[in-house]
């Protein structure tokens, strides 16, 4: 090796040495100085959080008709780097997405790796986009609740927001059961590691006590009554008084649960359980039940109706300001006399009266399985807003507030031998292959069987002699009307009322009880002329739908036995 070669070798060795030193230093810097950072980077690249979202449970009516299912909206996105024919795509997408063409073109030509053209489009729009056959346009499904029956049962079902959170109704109350359990796992996506499946626990399905056909009939009748009377809205609930199972629950105006975000916030509440009103004369049933059960009066007890009675220094008048002379308790109910109701309330005294009111479930939620139930208002002696006058006014349904469901449930105790049943909407929960069935629950027994029978007989007489509009040919109907004034700003509205009727049939063995409540009817303010005929028309359909034969057929011994066995 000559000196020149030796020098060159030396230079090469030096170069290699320096390179090795640099590599070693760099390795040391990786290992010592940036170790954590690089480890994090490695984890970020390799580890991926895989989340499996369960399908939300579906909701069916008592006969298995599907009321709510899962569907998808779609997110429309593109990766601009893969777009070659942006002009053509923009031209086609603009009318479908309802966006200016230049806006879409700008997105298609952007430098971003991924651009969302529309955050959420309906399945129909997605289908139109799919039919264009552009592979570059990506449609990512986004879970969405679908309501194949449209607005039917809107308040009861409630809505689900874009975060899969039930916002009202059953969707809100049964959120935990319906939503299932999300499965999430941090997984290494390296091809050299095992890929474990992530499986979520599916949401439970609900089977309701609601009969879809009955619900449809109820909503149709409610629509018709509201149109015919020019009312602002209304509520109808149909319940089986023997169990507390709700067969139909409708309130109008309604909203489309699919487009819940377009609805007024007020509409999202279920008026049947969330809105309070002064019930008016329907309350006389409860006052009378308390008076009979406490032994204060008997059906034959009489009082002298002079057309006015002073309670707490304030005069109480009859609805027509007339005097009815000597009246027994049956007459009091039949003529719906405020003076009589206030009189027997004063005979009972506040302790007895309010004790019974509370036993009937007023002033607290009944615990129905639907979101946002309210308990109403019942001022009690000692409360700041209670005066002695309340004894008189509360007796005929003024100065207290109830929900339509509370009023219906309280009266249903009279139709059910004195037992107050807890109302419920979900009959079965189907979860993980198991079926959980709801059993009827007794809340309390506010009055005796005898009192319940006496009240029923008096309510039958009231319908038979005074509320002709509520009668149904071939059936014995028990019931009571209510015409309630509406408090606004501390005083009662001079003309607007809430007209209502609660009726049950067959009176001797009730299979259904119905409340019809119409808000601010324009054609007539009275429950007897607005709500009672609506009840009768609805009941005519219900006896057919629920297979309740007329009394003359039903009361035949053979039929009774057969129906008892069936029940």
């Amino acid at each position, binding site marked *: 090796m000559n000196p020149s070669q030796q020098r060159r070798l030396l230079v090469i060795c030096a170069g290699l040495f320096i390179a090795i030193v640099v590599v070693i230093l760099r390795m040391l810097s990786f290992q010592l100085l940036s170790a954590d950072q690089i480890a994090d980077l490695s984890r970020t690249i390799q580890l991926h959080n895989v989340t*499996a979202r369960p*399908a939300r449970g*579906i909701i069916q009516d008592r006969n298995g*008709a*599907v*009321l709510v*299912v*899962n*569907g*998808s909206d779609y997110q429309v996105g593109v990766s601009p780097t893969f777009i070659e024919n942006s002009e053509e795509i923009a031209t086609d997408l603009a009318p479908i997405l309802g966006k200016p063409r230049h806006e879409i073109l700008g997105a298609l030509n952007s430098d971003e790796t991924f651009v969302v053209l529309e955050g959420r489009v309906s*399945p129909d729009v997605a289908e139109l986009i799919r039919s264009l056959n552009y592979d570059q346009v990506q449609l990512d*499904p986004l879970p969405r609740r*679908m309501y*194949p*029956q*449209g607005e*039917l049962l809107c308040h009861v079902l409630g809505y689900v927001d874009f975060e899969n959170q039930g916002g009202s109704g059953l969707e809100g109350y049964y959120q935990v059961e319906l939503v299932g359990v999300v499965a999430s796992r941090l997984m290494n996506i390296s*091809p*050299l*590691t*095992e*890929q*474990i*499946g*992530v*499986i979520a626990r599916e949401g439970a399905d609900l089977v309701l006590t609601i009969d*879809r*056909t009955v619900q*449809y009939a109820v909503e149709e009748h409610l629509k018709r009554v509201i149109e015919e009377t020019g009312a602002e809205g209304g509520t109808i609930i149909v319940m089986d008084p023997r169990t507390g199972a709700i067969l139909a629950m409708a309130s109008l105006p309604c909203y489309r649960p699919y487009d819940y975000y377009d609805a007024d916030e007020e509409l999202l509440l279920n008026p049947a359980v969330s809105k309070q009103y002064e019930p008016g004369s329907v309350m006389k049933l409860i006052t009378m039940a308390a008076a009979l059960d406490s032994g204060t009066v008997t059906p034959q007890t009489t009082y002298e109706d002079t057309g006015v009675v002073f309670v707490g220094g304030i005069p109480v008048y009859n609805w027509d300001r007339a005097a009815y002379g000597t009246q027994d308790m049956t007459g009091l109910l039949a003529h719906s006399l405020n003076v009589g109701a206030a009189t027997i309330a004063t005979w009972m005294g506040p302790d007895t009266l309010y004790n019974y009111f509370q036993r009937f479930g007023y002033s607290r939620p009944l615990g129905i399985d639907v979101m946002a139930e309210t308990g109403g208002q019942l001022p009690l002696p000692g409360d700041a807003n209670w005066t002695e006058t309340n004894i008189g006014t509360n007796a005929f349904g003024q100065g207290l507030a109830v929900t339509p469901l509370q009023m219906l449930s309280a009266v249903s105790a009279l139709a059910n031998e004195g037992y107050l049943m807890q109302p419920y909407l979900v009959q079965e929960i189907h979860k993980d292959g198991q079926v959980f069935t709801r059993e009827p629950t007794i809340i309390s027994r506010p009055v005796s069987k005898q009192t319940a029978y006496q009240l029923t007989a008096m309510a039958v007489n009231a319908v038979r002699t005074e509320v002709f509009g509520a009668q149904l*040919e*071939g059936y014995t109907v028990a019931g009571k009307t209510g015409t309630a004034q509406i408090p606004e700003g501390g005083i009662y509205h001079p003309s607007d009322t809430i007209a209502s009727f609660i009726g049950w049939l067959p009176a001797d063995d009730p299979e259904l009880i119905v409340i019809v409540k119409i808000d601010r009817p324009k054609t007539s303010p009275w429950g007897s002329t607005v709500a009672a005929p609506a009840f009768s028309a609805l009941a*005519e*359909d219900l*006896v*057919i739908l629920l297979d309740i*034969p*007329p009394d003359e*057929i039903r009361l*035949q011994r*053979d*039929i009774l036995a*057969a129906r008892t*066995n069936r029940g």
Partner: protein
Amino acid sequence: MSAHVARQRPRTRKDKRRKLLWLTEAQAALGWAVLLALAAVLGAIYLHQTSEIARVGRTVQSLQYQTDEVKRANSSLELDIARAQSLPRLKHQAEQMKFVPAVSDNIEYIVVHNYPPSQESTELIDPLPEPVVIDTAAEAVLRALAARFGDLTRGESE
């Protein structure tokens, strides 16, 4: 001779040593070869296993994706079915087929007494006698006479 022997001995020793060395090298090479082969086999097994695991993992993921797609399609079908069975649609179709809503006047209740049958009435009664086939007129006459006067022979009479 002895010189020849003396010359041969170291050659033999050298040969032996060379042979020994060769054997040692061959054994070493064989050892290395075996080691390499083992490493190769193990490596191949490892690679096969890991790639198999990865392949199965991807298959699982793909099947999960398919499951999701099928679930989505199923939900879509459920929705279509439910929409097809919605009451406004059924009502419209029924009206097109000239159906009208039933009202109570249209309904006639028929009372079938003793239905469902009570336990007493479900007791078995004697079955009807089998009909008799009569082939000739003579046989018919004989049977008629027997029926007419048979009671006499049993000690019974009308």
